[in-house]
């Protein structure tokens, strides 16, 4: 059953050095504040997992929290590259970053397998590309029914999944709506999970298209209004497009980035713009 906790206590309890950690979210509901808390608590050697790593992963990587990234697209959406990510892969700064590259479909299916308690997923993609040569977790498999050669990818079962949602009730049932990605699969696949929410309420009013993560699937709920900034929470906040543009400048320069990290570590509420 989920326990309501502060963000700092939840991260301290759930995220350990060396863990496989997935902070999921797609354009909307990205758990950025939780990422900053991981930076503040100076976690190290994490394997970060995400279908579409964006600014918060650039920040975690630049702050030296990660040794490996499992992903299918990494960029500053609508702006360009992630400069800290590129610096880590290309130059090993501040620490070398190993990458495990998959396709979107491969990542989504890996989470689904993890959530389903299955050891791997099977799909048609990857054949004909170079990915099987550069990514160890892509293997050919023969269909036992048709003899066709397909591709197997192993389940992802993160040590910790972290997502952001609109709200939770006091029992820790979580409700989210609007554009969702693989949050449900990531949480169900994970050994431990943390959900940051815009607000904790007495009762969850049903919302069209809404999804509930039951309390039993969640370990900690932390109330963090604006915790998705600079992404947004439908019904609560708008996307801060200027932050994404400003991040391009901050992240290009190691010194400027380090000043930014110091501001995060000092507990200042940091916004790039």
């Amino acid at each position, binding site marked *: 059953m989920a326990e309501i906790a502060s963000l700092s206590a939840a991260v301290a309890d759930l995220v350990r050095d060396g863990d496989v950690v997935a902070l999921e979210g*797609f*354009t909307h509901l990205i758990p950025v504040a939780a990422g900053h808390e991981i930076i503040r608590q100076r976690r190290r050697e994490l394997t970060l997992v995400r279908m579409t790593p964006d600014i918060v992963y650039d920040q975690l990587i630049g702050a030296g929290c990660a040794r490996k990234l499992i*992903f*299918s*697209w*990494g*960029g500053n959406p609508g702006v360009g*590259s992630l400069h800290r*990510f*590129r610096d880590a*892969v*290309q130059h090993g700064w501040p620490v070398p970053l*190993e*990458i495990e*590259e*998959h*396709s*979107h*479909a*491969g990542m*989504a299916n890996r989470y689904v397998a993890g959530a389903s308690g299955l050891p791997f997923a099977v*799909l*048609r*993609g*990857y*054949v*004909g*590309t*170079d*990915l099987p040569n*550069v990514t160890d977790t892509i293997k050919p498999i023969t269909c036992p029914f048709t003899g*066709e*050669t*397909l591709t197997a990818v192993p389940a992802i079962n993160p040590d910790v999944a972290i997502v952001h949602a609109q709200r939770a009730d006091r029992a820790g049932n979580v409700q989210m709506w609007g*554009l*969702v*990605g*693989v949050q449900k699969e990531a949480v169900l696949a994970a050994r431990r999970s943390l959900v940051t929410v815009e607000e904790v309420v007495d009762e969850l009013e049903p919302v069209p*298209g809404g999804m509930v993560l039951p309390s039993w699937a969640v370990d900690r709920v932390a109330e963090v209004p604006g915790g998705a900034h600079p992404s947004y929470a439908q019904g609560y906040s708008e996307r801060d497009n200027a932050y994404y543009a400003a991040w391009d400048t901050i992240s290009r320069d190691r010194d400027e980035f380090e000043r930014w990290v110091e501001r995060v570590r000092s507990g200042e509420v940091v916004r790039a713009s």
Partner: protein
Amino acid sequence: MTTARRSESSDNGDDVTRAEVAVVACAELFRDAGEIVASPMGLIPSLGAKLARLTFAPGLLLSDGEAYLLDADGQVEGWQPFKKVLDVVVPHGTRHVVMGANQIDRFGNQNISAIGDHARPDRQLLGVRGAPGNTVNHRTSYWTPKHSKRVFVDAVDVVSGVGYDNAHKAGQAASRFHDVHRVVTNLAVLDFDTPDRSMRLVSVHPGVSVDEVLEQTSFPLDTSRTTETRLPDAEELRLIREVVDPKTTRDKEVPS
């Protein structure tokens, strides 16, 4: 500002920009497509898809690449998040994706992963995203705003989207639904309609010579049937300038 030269095939009274020619070339990707989901990545392909829908491809469904189906004005007309895409769209022949390419080779292999060694690249790119699945499951085209030898290379560093030679080598699982349709650039339109499925120069944009395209391409191109890319007609020009891109954002991607 230089502009593409006028052509007798156009009845418009003023000069057409290169960006406008590229928008129409991207629109032409969807001619006779029927009722499919078009997923154009990048500005010029998006403008082209909108133009196609407003003119000769009214059945086109446009996605915003995230969760919504849009009409040509950008109004939401349906909700289609990730899972619906997997349910509805991936089944074959119902989608046409237009992607970018940091590198592309003679057989249409595309690289958006890394330049150099994958483990420690000279340039880490954005990542393969959906390309390994897109290219072996439904029609795919490419758009590149800067036709150069850096993009049109002899061999790509990391095959992300599958080309004809690799699809053939990999067999049924890759070749069954494989369909790399065209490559549109700021200079030309190319396809793979040759006996060995190597790249062919379909047309050069008005004001561009065949030699100029060959100079900017690392590998030889079949130029035996090369024509000139058509200009927009008067109605298309009006739609581009007044409806789909009144702020002229197209000129930033393809300067005249």
